[in-house]
Each structure stands twice: as C-alpha cells, then as structure tokens.
C-alpha cells in the first residue's frame, strides 16, 4: 500500500517539474496507473522515460508497496 502523495513525491524526486496523476486500479492502493508529464522527457524515447520513472519508484516497487504499475510518460506538449 502506498498513498498517492507518497507516489508523487517519489516521482518528483527524480522529475521535479512533473505533473503526476495517479489512479488506483483495484482499490487496494498497490495496483496503479500513473501519468507523468514532464519536460525532462524531451528527447528521450519511451523506454528511457519509463526507466526514469521505474528508477524513481525503485524503493516502493522493491518492497512491494507497489505491486503493479501502468505508466504514461509525456512532455507538456503531449509529445
């Protein structure tokens, strides 16, 4: 279990400008869809954008607070 705020904080540690929207997909607070919008993604392909997010969330993923994660990673202009 992890709260939306805590998830957002983790992401913001790596992507300070990120707008993060979190959806709890199963109501158990451990299966999430997250959408991260940040201009730090500019010039990065999708795989590297997702790697950035996985690295930012490494701790809660390793200790099981996050069980499943669906990611959308875009720049502010939707690219």
């Amino acid at each position, binding site marked *: 279990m992890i709260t939306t705020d805590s998830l957002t904080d983790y992401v913001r540690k790596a992507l300070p400008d990120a707008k993060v929207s979190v959806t709890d997909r199963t109501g158990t607070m451990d299966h999430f869809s997250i959408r991260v919008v940040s201009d730090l993604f500019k010039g990065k392909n*999708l*795989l590297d954008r997702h*790697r950035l997010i996985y690295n930012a969330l490494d701790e809660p993923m390793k200790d099981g607070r996050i069980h499943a994660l669906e990611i959308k990673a875009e720049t502010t202009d939707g690219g």
Partner: protein
Amino acid sequence: MADPLEAEIQQEIKKHKILIYGKGTKALPMCGFTRETMQFFDQYGYPYEVIDVLPNPAKREALTKMTNWPTLPKVFINGQFYGDTDILEPMEKKGELEPLLKETFKNS
C-alpha cells in the same frame, strides 16, 4: 565466455521473432499483464512465444540486468527489447508497430 544465462537469452530472442518473457506459459498465463500482452499480439495474428521465467529467478534477474527494466512481462521483437504494452500501445497509436511487425515477418 558470456554468462550462460545471457547466452541462453540471446539465443531465444534470436529464435523467436516475437518473444514474451512473462509469468506463466502461453497455455496458462499466471499474470494479468502477461495475458494482456498475449492478447495484444493476438490482434495481429503473427506467431509469438511465451517463456515463463517464474521458475527461474536467476534468469529473470539476468533479463532485468540486460534490459535495465525491472518488471515482467518483457517483450522482444526481432531480437530488440520493447518493454511491454505500455511501450507497444503508444507505438501502435503512432503507427510504428505495424511496419515493424511487417518488416520482422517479411521473409518468413
């Protein structure tokens, strides 16, 4: 000599044009995301293989290191790593996936 697990993986990703490393088998997928990835490729009708890495944690770890990608399933197309449906779906929307699959199966 390359790590035997890595060599085994290299061989598998060359052998299967579409390869899904996941939890469970094609007949019995054990995880929603693995099943979802299979259904994703079912739309296209190209053959794909599923390799279960649950019984082999060392191989699972080797895959994670090789791809710098912490989760399963892991998809390889034509020997290249493409993450999972979080990557494939945006590629599909941008019209990048169909040409890639056509190219991959061109001479088979």
